[in-house]
């Protein structure tokens, strides 16, 4: 496609992307550098049905004057990024100096909310993405081999986890692993431990969420791989069969190289998706044991009675940077291939 045609073709999408994705990101970025003005408070008498007390309220007259002068808030630079609830620069320095061995240092750092969330998010990505790719590929291969007649219903059954709304899917599993649910109660019986609970143990909660993630995301990989498998040319495969190549060798040397670009694509998309893991945490009520970066943003925006825009914005920006870092190797590789292909 000539560049000019491409430009006109892309223009509407590009404009929409700038308007609905680019500008909000810029606005979020700006927001993350600001904090609320210092609160002007005053002591007043408060009376309710249970009696009167003297305590403080925000002085709205004074506050609105300051707000009108500087509606964005107080410039905080990287203050929000470096505070304890985010990168915790000072705390980490302190831990480094105070702790005696590296293990204790890691313990202290992973106790900080941002790092706690980062570790869960990365663990989730690292376990879910490769397994989704592998499982999706295996399902695609097996389905590609079954008779055409039953393929339709099988495909439908396989993509069901993706059709089910994530929240509903996780809720169903949540009830099943309840200590009185079918899975939870059976595991208790099996282990002979009435206090065993999949929901209260951190490790078991993580495992549950990861398994759920694999279950939920595999169909996507499967659908894409299955489509790609239809494009694998038959001639080289027949030639390989004549040459005596085993099934495994055929897949390794012909099928995989052929669908390689698709694998990269699926890997990219699932990495991005998994880095933003959120619904299962809500669905499993797992806030206590597992927090992800997206959950931190949600927490700052809705769980507090006071909305922390600065915090949420800072975490959002860092999530974007995190995704960029994760994707960098794959993107660089694709770019290089693109260059050589030309």
């Amino acid at each position, binding site marked *: 496609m000539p560049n000019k045609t491409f430009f006109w073709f892309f223009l509407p999408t590009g404009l929409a992307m700038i308007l609905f994705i680019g500008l909000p990101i810029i606005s979020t970025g700006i927001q993350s550098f600001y*904090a*609320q*003005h*210092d*609160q002007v*408070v*005053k*002591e*007043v*008498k*408060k*009376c*309710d*049905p*249970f*009696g009167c007390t003297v*305590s*403080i*309220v*925000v002085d*709205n007259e004074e*506050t*609105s004057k300051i707000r009108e002068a500087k509606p964005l808030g*107080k410039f*905080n630079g990287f203050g*929000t990024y470096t*505070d*304890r*609830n985010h990168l915790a620069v000072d*705390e980490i320095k302190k831990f480094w100096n105070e702790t005696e061995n590296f293990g204790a240092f890691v313990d202290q750092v992973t*106790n900080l*909310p941002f790092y706690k969330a980062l570790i869960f998010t990365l663990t989730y990505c690292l376990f879910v993405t490769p397994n989704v790719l592998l499982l999706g590929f295996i399902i695609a291969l097996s389905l590609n081999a079954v008779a055409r007649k039953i393929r339709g219903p099988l495909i439908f059954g396989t993509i069901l986890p993706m059709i089910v709304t994530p929240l509903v899917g996780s809720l169903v599993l*949540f009830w099943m692993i*309840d*200590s009185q649910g079918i899975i939870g109660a059976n595991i208790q019986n099996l282990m002979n431990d*009435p*206090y*065993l*609970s999949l*929901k*209260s*143990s*951190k490790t078991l909660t993580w495992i549950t969420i990861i398994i759920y993630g694999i279950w939920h995301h595999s169909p996507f990989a499967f659908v894409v791989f299955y489509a790609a498998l239809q494009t694998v040319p038959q001639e080289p495969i027949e030639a390989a069969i004549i040459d005596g190549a085993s099934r495994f060798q055929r897949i390794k040397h012909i099928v995989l190289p052929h669908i390689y670009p698709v694998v990269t694509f699926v890997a990219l998309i699932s990495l991005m998706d998994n880095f933003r893991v959120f619904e299962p945490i809500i669905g*499993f*009520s*797992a*806030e*206590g*044991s597992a*927090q992800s970066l997206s959950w931190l943003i949600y*927490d700052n925006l*809705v*769980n*507090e*009675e*006071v*909305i*922390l825009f*600065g*915090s949420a914005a800072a975490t959002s920006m860092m999530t974007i940077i995190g995704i960029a870092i994760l994707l960098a190797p794959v993107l660089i590789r694709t770019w290089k291939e693109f260059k050589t292909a030309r």
Partner: protein
Amino acid sequence: MRKILVTLLFLLFGTSAFADCNIKSGSINILANDFPALRTFVETSKQCKGSADFKVTHSSEHNKIAVPALTANPSEFSARIAANSSIVPLMNQDLIRPLDDLVKKYGKGIQDSQLITIDGKVMAVAFMANTQHLYYREDVLKDLGIAIPKTYEEVVAASEKIRASGKMQYPYAAAYKAGWNLAEEFVNMFIGHGGEFFKSGSAEPNINNAKGVATLNMLKKLSELSNPDYLTHDSEAIKVEWESGNVALMTLWASRSGTLLDDEGDPNITKATKLTGPATVGGGNIPAATLWWDGFTLAKNRPDADAEATFRALAHAASNKKMVADAADQAVWLVEGFVPGPKSIGVIEAVKMGAKPYPMLPQMGLMHGALGSEIVEFLQGKESAEQALKDVEAAYISKAKEQGFL
């Protein structure tokens, strides 16, 4: 405290006065939490709408909508049914209007004790009271010869006895779901220990002390007697546990007693379900519970005509003797003419025992948020009480700095 007793017990003899219901214009749009008493309240106010436009949104997610919806100008809602804690963000952002004029003009039936005044201005009109208190299974306690617990130490002892008897494995329940609910349990227990959340006259946190540690230890003891999934259980979940007969002692909101004691579920359990006041803890004499009121506030960013119409409709409900007589089971109404029934025992006992109201401080929401996420690891046995409290304070300080409180 005396005021509420007066309200609750003696107001049968008050003068009768109904709000004038001849509303000609304006539009009314109410945002409220979703439980039976509030539905009754809003329905009652609807009877009075006249020719005004009337809309209502009942949502358990009301807290998430309130501030953005009232910030808009004109705001989406003309009224918000708020409580001690949820009025604070509205006050912080200056989103609600003083009601003095309207009370003077249209608030004939509203009693003085219903008025929430801040700095001399009426900011809300309360109509019901709430608290968390103990529920117990009379049959189970009788069988084992256990007296009705008055303190959390007795709750622990009783639960251990029930467990030892083999009747129930997890005899105690409370809403310990990580987040708001768990933090609320901490707030109750900390207040029961006589704690103050902030150093006097400042927003500096004050929980990393002996009282904080004692609070956490008590929560942990209770959690060990609860269903192991306690960190995922909210009020609704423990209600279900109770109705399945898995629990003999429970701390739950008074406003939920109505659905707990209704005809649904096993009649034997319902019959044996009894209410008592909140427990004290650590030898303290005030209960480990906080008092709550629910009341209505009016949005500032709304034309005066709407505010007037809304006030008149809501005031009609907030002074409606028929409503409190018909729905006496649903709540502890603060409205004139309410005769407390057996389901109101919890709140009345709490008031008698001198329970404190939930702290109505501008920075309390931040403390509540920090508690909800940072004490979980202590309950899971992953860190010490001191470390957990240190974490809460540190998380709170960062948030309070961002919000400009420190």
